């Protein structure tokens, strides 16, 4: 390959690598201008910290799952089931710690089910997760029985409630804590490297002695912690969990990952920042679009256009890297 060509390739590749961050900055700049600075007011920053949390927690964990090449469509369902059972536990006991424990246990159990399935059954994983997702929503309906919504205020003894600032603090701690742990696992331990290699070439990864089944279960477990935290935060923030809770989380996470620059088929180009950056872009976009007061139909159109641009840019840099020498 010629020097000039190499430079072009490197530049395009480099652009591809930073595109999500550039996109985030761009979205922030554009909407700050359009909202007359309102986007970056203290109130709205707190706002967005609260809004980003569910998508971000789930998306960060999902990087591990998607990274090995498991396309998981049951993420929203997992949040729903954890939140419903966690909220019920809180109502029965009045303890938010028990609620957290139940959230963790439920999502871990789902992770094990997914892990067993992907390791031992030869059906495309995403098909399994589609089925799992709908099974979960039916299970939730059965569990809730005659009630459609679980209210924390019906608890046997008062469940502590948090004001706006406390909530923001809890959110930021959960998000940064989980992100830090995931960042560490993904970039500074063999776990992340193994995930990338498995996503790139399962056979090669196996031949390098990477324990495929164990790793898959591990990725689901890591992701389950994010799911549990998201469910827990939903419980204490909304104090109201219905059968529609987290209905849009699955798609939000997928959009966030794509916007964040994560190859949806996983592999060596997976990056942990995709979950956080992508969730931030989605949140700023949603918040900004709502704030400038577009009608709801137009919001959806604009969101779609942004999504298409990102995919185009992503495929642009991807092609650049694969152009023949």
């Amino acid at each position, binding site marked *: 390959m010629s020097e000039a060509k190499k430079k072009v390739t490197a530049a395009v590749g480099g652009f591809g690598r930073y595109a999500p961050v550039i996109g985030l900055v761009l979205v922030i700049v554009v909407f700050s201008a359009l909202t*007359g600075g309102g986007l970056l007011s203290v109130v709205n920053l707190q706002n967005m910290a609260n*809004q980003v949390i569910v998508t971000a927690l789930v998306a960060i964990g999902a990087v591990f799952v998607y990274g090995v090449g498991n396309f998981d469509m049951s993420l929203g369902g997992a949040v729903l089931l954890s939140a419903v059972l966690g909220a019920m536990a809180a109502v029965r006991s009045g303890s938010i710690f028990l609620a957290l424990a139940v959230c963790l246990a439920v999502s871990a159990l789902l992770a094990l089910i997914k892990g067993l399935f992907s390791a031992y059954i030869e059906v495309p994983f995403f098909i399994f997760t589609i089925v799992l997702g709908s099974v979960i929503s039916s299970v939730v309906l059965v569990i809730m029985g005659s009630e459609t919504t679980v209210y924390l205020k019906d608890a046997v003894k008062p469940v502590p409630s948090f004001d706006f600032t406390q909530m923001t603090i809890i959110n930021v701690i959960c998000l940064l804590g989980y992100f830090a742990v995931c960042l560490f696992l993904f970039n500074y331990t063999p776990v992340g490297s193994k995930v990338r290699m498995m996503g790139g070439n399962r056979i090669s990864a196996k031949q390098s002695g990477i324990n495929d089944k164990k790793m898959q279960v591990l990725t689901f477990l890591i992701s389950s912690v994010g799911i549990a935290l998201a469910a827990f935060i939903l419980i204490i923030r909304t104090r109201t969990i219905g059968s529609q809770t987290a209905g849009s989380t699955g798609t939000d996470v997928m959009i966030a990952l794509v916007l964040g620059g994560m190859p949806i088929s996983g592999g060596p180009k997976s990056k942990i920042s995709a979950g956080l950056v992508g969730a931030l872009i989605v949140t700023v976009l949603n918040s900004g679009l709502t704030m400038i*007061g577009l*009608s709801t139909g137009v919001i959806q159109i604009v969101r779609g256009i942004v999504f*298409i641009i990102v995919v185009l840019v992503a495929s642009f840099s991807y092609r650049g890297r694969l152009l023949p020498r």
Partner: protein
Amino acid sequence: MKKKLLSVLLASAMALSMAACGGAPAGGDSNNGGNTQQDSNGGSADANVQDDGGDASGGDVALDGSYPAETVKIGLVGYDNTSEQQMAIQEYLDYLSEKFNIEVMYSENLADAEGELNFISDCAAAGCKAVIGYYNEALSEAAKTAADYGMYYWGGFGGNKDEVEAAKTTCGEYYLGGYTLGEADYEGGRSLALALAEQGCEKVVFCSGGASFGVTQFVERKEGFLAGVEEAKANGVNMEVVKEVEGWPGTDSFTADQTAVMGMEVDAIASSFDVAMWFQPVMEAGKAESVKLAAIGEVSDTYHDFFNSGLVSVIVYDNEEVVFGNAIPLILNAVSGNKLVDADGNGFQYEVQRWTITTPEEFNAVYDLHDSGNWVVTAEDIAELLVDLNPDANADTFKTFYGSFGIESVMQ
């Protein structure tokens, strides 16, 4: 390669132009944004009345969108932008936006509590001063969130008193109140039964919607309906429920039940929600003459022809202007420092009427009002309830005014 670049450019151009279109008016408003905080502090009635409000004597101010001086932004939490009721509300609020200096932001279709709270916080960031909780999944949390941001909250209706009380507590001084329809859903169901009894229907089918899944609203409507049937019996009408159809249209069981009903001898089909899904089966079975339909629904195009042809004979109707439009005077008063309060100094629940429409005359009267751009509750009516414009206005005049609207008063 060139094509790709071109498409990216085109797409971004579109995105920007669209964003710019929507952005222009919002940008203009934000110039005034600095005063917002002051206003929301003046929650109690003795707060200093603004200058322009003082000058105006009752009713003299031209209702051309100049009052109040500063645009009042309001967020409306809805769950379905395409529902007839929400569209009717939107139409009414559009009318009021021309008369008063208000601007309403509508949420996207919301399904869960998370989305509801996120929208409310976005409203705060966009400079809204009040939130209309047309839909609520997590009433007390929504009210609390609004209060946290210093926005007034209007809402809290339906049967669940505990929820309303909880919202009152969490929202505190920012709670504006909301209407009640008495035992709204119970009464709605009862009115259906009584209206049908009056028309001499004996064998009735009842669509109970979500009652069998335990959805409170529908459970109460069903209880009300059954009570109405008993009442009719006591009055000498030999009325009985020959079949209960559970669930929603579009499911297999619902379709099966519909087929079964068409094979039965029935006088009327009452639905605790919409009834439009019965039009076709009834007509196809050639029973349009013998079967009467009754619904809790809207005065809208959907029912216009069928009501006039006699197929639909009862609609229990919540008039949007009366039931939801009352949020506007409450908000405008609160924002100008004249929050209407009850004896205990808090926002309050007040009773409005649910209209039971049983004749084409009644239906057409209401329908024509809408159609010709006339309103049951006009901007002028609302101006009378604003303390700034009419110093005599208070909580009692408000309650009396909205409580007085029934189908009879409209007919007059």
